């Protein structure tokens, strides 16, 4: 065991606390009355969780690829199934992202959610536990329990507080992701039967035969590709994003989508390295299609939320691209891009929520000329839009740059095609920015000159951001520039773990080559390699 992990040396069980605090908060919330009290309670619980999570940042040892802050308890000894949680350089940042985004989810729902506040707070807190559980589980069954358990609160968030087509969107979300991830369960059980363990680090060490790896890879990748979402499994995302309430969109964009990428890094790459290598070209091509199709579809949207949703498909394409380049820059870029997307797209959804509360519309043609009335809002919109299109100096630039560097380093053609995606991103984000801030060219102006005033007859009240909204956006802005200008601390945390991961892939595929040196699988790999070289 010691070779995989370092037990928690803090004097409190930090990861278990992170999992338990929101649940306790949810249970206490059941007995509370009054929407205001509940909102403050939800905020307090998420803030406490965020505070508790901070030692993960300060006490993280970036020099080792082992799991840290590990807690181990017996849970189900008959099956060698333990409660074991820990973080490494791949998951620790995602845990922090989750704990820091959740208070914002409560804040941005402060006035947006008008009905059933109690249930909303309970469900959101349970969601936090489930999401954190996914990132800290070191055991495949525990992982799966949180992974699937997450569906229920997310489904409720969309189904109860969603927009007009919430019915359709929520059920599509649920069925899509459930169908994808149930095969993951088969893979988990199959690996258990072969190896006798559910312990993730031990599974990573195990060398499965090539054919077996292909099945494992297929079963896992399907679930993760849907969650990501990767073309052609992306169709649930726009529906879910558009219909979800603002907090739901933020959770979806900032955290849920990261789980696909995390799953690839945690399961597919280390557990099925030879299969990963074999499937790499297909996944790279799917990533490129995601980037281009996502960007292209975003360009044509008139609904702002849909636009951002499709842009997420494109951004996630960059993430999978980076992951399946299987080199240092690519994987680091992908991980950084996951965080960036969490910050930037989360902020964009908060911004859309803010304007939706004022104009009750998400149409570009309605929400225009905002620059005249809402200068602070527009400033933030500008910052986050530029961040989304990877403007130098903002966070996404660093991530995208690393991915592109990795791509050009390995397959220049892939890099060249993905540049197209970056250009598309600039096109649709600038189009959105221009329409929302200045445009009144279509002559269809909904709010006249007097809309800045408290005049209900002529249109909507377009008052600027209030303090609560300002705080949320300012908080995320800090991260935009911090990661944009000084990403070193974050990259430093990933360094060892990513190097270890790449080592695992190389070692795993080397073993396979040695074993199948004369076998047909080797020929398959060879063909795949040749195929890639010819193509790229």
């Amino acid at each position, binding site marked *: 065991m010691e070779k995989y992990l370092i037990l928690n040396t803090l004097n409190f069980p930090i990861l278990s606390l992170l999992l338990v605090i929101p649940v306790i908060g949810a249970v206490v919330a059941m007995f509370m009355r009054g929407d205001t009290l509940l909102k403050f309670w939800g905020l307090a619980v998420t803030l406490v969780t965020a505070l508790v999570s901070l030692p993960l940042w300060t006490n993280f040892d970036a020099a080792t690829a082992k799991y840290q802050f590990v807690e181990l308890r017996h849970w189900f000894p008959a099956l060698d199934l333990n409660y074991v949680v820990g973080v490494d350089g791949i998951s620790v940042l995602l845990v922090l992202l989750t704990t820091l985004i959740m208070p914002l989810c409560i804040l941005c729902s402060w006035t947006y959610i008008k009905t059933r506040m109690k249930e909303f707070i309970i469900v959101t807190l349970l969601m936090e536990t489930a999401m954190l559980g996914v990132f800290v589980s070191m055991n495949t069954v525990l992982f799966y329990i949180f992974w699937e358990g997450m569906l229920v609160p997310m489904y409720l968030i969309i189904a109860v507080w969603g927009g007009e087509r919430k019915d359709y969107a929520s059920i599509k979300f649920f069925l899509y992701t459930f169908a994808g991830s*149930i095969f993951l369960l088969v893979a988990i059980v199959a690996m258990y039967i072969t190896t006798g363990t559910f312990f993730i680090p031990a599974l990573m060490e195990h060398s499965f035969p090539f054919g077996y790896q292909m099945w494992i890879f297929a079963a896992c990748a399907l679930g993760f590709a849907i969650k990501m979402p990767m073309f052609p499994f992306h169709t649930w995302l726009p529906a879910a994003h558009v219909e979800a309430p603002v907090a739901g969109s933020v959770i979806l964009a900032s955290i849920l989508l990261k789980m696909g990428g995390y799953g690839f890094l945690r399961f597919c790459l280390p557990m099925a390295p030879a299969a990963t290598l074999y499937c790499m070209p297909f996944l790279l091509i799917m990533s490129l299609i995601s980037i281009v199709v996502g960007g292209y579809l975003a360009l044509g949207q008139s609904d702002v939320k849909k636009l951002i949703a499709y842009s997420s498909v494109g951004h996630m394409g960059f993430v999978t691209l980076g992951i399946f380049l299987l080199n240092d820059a690519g994987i680091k870029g992908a991980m950084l891009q996951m965080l960036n997307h969490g910050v930037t797209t989360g902020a964009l959804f908060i911004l859309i929520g803010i304007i939706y509360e004022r104009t009750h519309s998400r149409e570009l043609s309605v929400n225009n000329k905002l620059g005249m009335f809402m200068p602070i809002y527009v400033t933030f919109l500008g910052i986050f839009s530029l961040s989304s299109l990877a403007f130098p100096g903002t966070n996404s630039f660093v991530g995208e740059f690393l991915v592109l560097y990795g791509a050009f380093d390995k397959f220049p053609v892939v890099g060249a095609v993905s540049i197209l995606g970056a250009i598309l991103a600039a096109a649709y984000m600038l189009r959105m920015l221009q329409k929302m801030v200045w445009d009144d060219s279509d002559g269809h102006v909904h709010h006249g000159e007097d809309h800045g005033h408290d005049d209900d007859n002529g249109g909507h009240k377009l008052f600027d951001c209030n303090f609560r909204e300002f705080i949320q956006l300012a908080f995320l802005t800090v991260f935009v520039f911090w990661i944009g200008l000084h990403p070193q601390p974050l990259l430093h945390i990933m360094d060892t773990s990513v190097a270890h991961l790449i080592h695992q892939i190389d070692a795993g595929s080397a073993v396979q080559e040695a074993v199948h040196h004369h076998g047909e699988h080797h020929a398959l790999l060879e063909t795949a390699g040749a195929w890639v070289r010819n193509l790229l």
Partner: protein
Amino acid sequence: MLNTVFLPELALMLTVLVLFFMTLGKFKTGTVQAVSLLFAAISLVAAVASFGSHGDLFYNAYRVDALSQLFKIAIILGLFLVFMLGHGLTGIRRELHTEYNMFLTISAMGLVFLSSSVELLTILLSLEISSYALYVVIPFRQGQGRIHVEAGIKYVLFGAASTGLTLYGMSYVFGLAHTTYLSELAQKMPALVATQPLAVFAMIFVMTAFFYKLALFPMHFWTPDVYQGASNETAGFVATLPKVGAVLLLIRFAAVAGFDITQFTWVLAAIAVLSMTLGNLSALVQNDLKRLLAYSSIAHAGYVMLGVITADLVGMSASVFYVIGYLLMNLGCFYVIYNIAPDGENVTFDDLKGLSKRSPLLALTLLVSAFSMAGIPPTIGFIGKFMLFTGALHKGFYALVIIAVINAAVAAFYYLKMARAAYCAPESDPSLPFEAITLPLGSRFLATFFIVIIIAIGAMPQSLLNAAKSAISTLL
């Protein structure tokens, strides 16, 4: 000595006797319910007390072991929950309330006998005690036209036919092996099953009555009509308790047929696949909740068979675990159905609309039960499926597990439809009733019990799974 071993049976017989004497007088429903609950609770205590005792009774035709005692606890717990769930017995003709409870107890008693029966004729007798009581009870419904008569007739006809087939199969088994004792059959049958198609044929026929009870593929036709025609509380009983008994007997027969993979295994596997696929696909289009649960039970029967066909410790104990979990989550659903329909009418999806506003507790119970049936963690249904898949994969049934997984994904749709109907308030229908459903204290307690136990066993399955394992290990 006899008494401690035979304690749950004695307690149930006492309950039947007390209820029988009550049928001679006139009592209020509340009194009948209180007495039934009290005696069911006593029987439950007796069953728990006799857990761990073992012995062979009645010329070795009746075996008390860990397996039988675990199932007795489950059956009597189920009976207790059905009594508690049907407070007021709104769906039953007023003058028959005492008789109703008596017959339900007799049926449960038959199932308890069945759990311990290890000889073919004893099995048949116990089965018939349990079935006949139910044949009587189904037409007790009031005020819903003649639908319950149709249900009653269908149940009798299918039941009689399947019992006949079982007897026919038993005659072959006796002819082949010259004994009716399961323990002796277990020594002779495996060799016969491996070599003679006739033995496979005979074993399948012997199991037919239990396919019928479990609503497994070729014998499933009665299920939707009977669920729909029987009153809500009766359907809750029919949907759960006999299935628990049936699974035990299927496990016993599968053990008799041997632990190797033979033709027999593949016949059962085909039945399992057809059952889950047909059940799930038919459930997708149902609008009546009881019909939906009927088709879902056909599908669940298919899942349970995954464990039975493995014929090893992991798989069979998974089946035991699953069927006990199924008892709890299915009763959770029927509890909600019973409480939505104040006059005992059938419930459709339209009646579920706005449930989360009318009664948040009922909506939550439905949500938890439905998600558990769909197999979403952390519920008992998830652990059950997980264990079943583990068992089946362990034995190498990869294709079966993949079919089951696809089925589980399909099934998620209609379970979700239930939750959706309960939680998504209708967009444009203000005419729907929004009067709150008030539940009596006992009923609220029951709802909390369902929610807590489904999640608690899902999170901490260790003790129940250990009990299931030790029960199965007595068989192997």
